[in-house]
């Protein structure tokens, strides 16, 4: 797909452009690229609905980097991310009839990806609980101890301790910095529910940090 970038305007890009001019040109090129992508998506969606399976291949190719980036929030394991991206595109194909075309396809896919990732967290937590139950029936096994030194590992451990709902609220609102409206739309919740969930999640997180003896003040 052809795209208009700042290099198309100025092939050598050695021209001494002031920062604000570069900013305007970059914004123009971004707007133009997203419009071209939207047009290509609409054409391909229409083709898929008309029975052209190969058009869906183009959609997957175009959007899988974005969806992989999204899914990397839900797992740090490469194989799991691959599986989640796969599941997201299969689900999107099966519900393509519900895509109305008034919003960019990328937004619609991101919504499906968020819900697929959330389901993964729920399954993962259920499986972990089942394993822990089994272990506690057979031995005096305890939950894995929190990593003591690595802050990143500790943060991931603490996020794992939250319920999937709490974790989703914290991730969308605070780690990704989305607005309440945007986060609620992605999660498929009402804005009130999201705010309540985020408030409870913050309280639980604070309690977890205090339990670990971490000074977060």
């Amino acid at each position, binding site marked *: 797909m052809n795209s208009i970038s700042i290099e198309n305007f100025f092939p050598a890009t050695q021209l001494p452009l002031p920062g604000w001019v570069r900013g305007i040109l970059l914004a123009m090129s971004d707007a133009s690229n997203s419009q071209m992508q939207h047009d290509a998506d609409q054409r391909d969606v229409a083709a898929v609905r008309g029975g052209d399976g190969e058009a869906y291949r183009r959609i997957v190719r175009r959007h899988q980097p974005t969806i992989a980036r999204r899914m*990397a929030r839900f797992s740090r394991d490469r194989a799991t991310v691959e599986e989640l991206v796969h599941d997201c595109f*299969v689900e999107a194909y099966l519900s393509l009839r519900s895509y109305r075309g008034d919003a960019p396809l990328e937004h619609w896919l991101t919504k499906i990806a968020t819900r697929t990732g959330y389901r993964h967290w729920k399954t993962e937590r259920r499986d972990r609980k089942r394993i822990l139950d089994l272990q506690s029936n057979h031995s005096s096994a305890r939950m894995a101890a929190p990593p003591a030194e690595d802050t*990143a590992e500790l943060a991931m451990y603490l996020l794992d301790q939250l319920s999937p709902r709490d974790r989703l609220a914290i991730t969308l609102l605070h780690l990704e910095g989305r607005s309440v409206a945007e986060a609620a739309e992605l999660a498929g919740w009402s804005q009130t529910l999201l705010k309540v969930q985020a408030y409870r999640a913050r309280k639980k997180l604070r309690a977890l940090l205090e339990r670990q003896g971490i000074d977060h003040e």
Partner: protein
Amino acid sequence: MNELNWLKDAVPNPIPPDIDVTDDVMRTIRTRQSEPSAALFSPRLLLGVALASWALAGVAVLIAQQAVSAFQNPLGDLLRF
């Protein structure tokens, strides 16, 4: 809000892996399309069919009872019906 600041600083930025699932997705879609529709045998649908059959059978029994009693006592039972 301090716990959130701590978390934001501590959580590493996710690094998306360089993956290509295109062929897998297309293969799964083709397989799904060649299978008989799963919805046809979904537990919810089967339950619906069972309930509808049970309701229909109940109505049929009631009609039969009324017909029999009407046959036995044409005037009285027909009026009651």
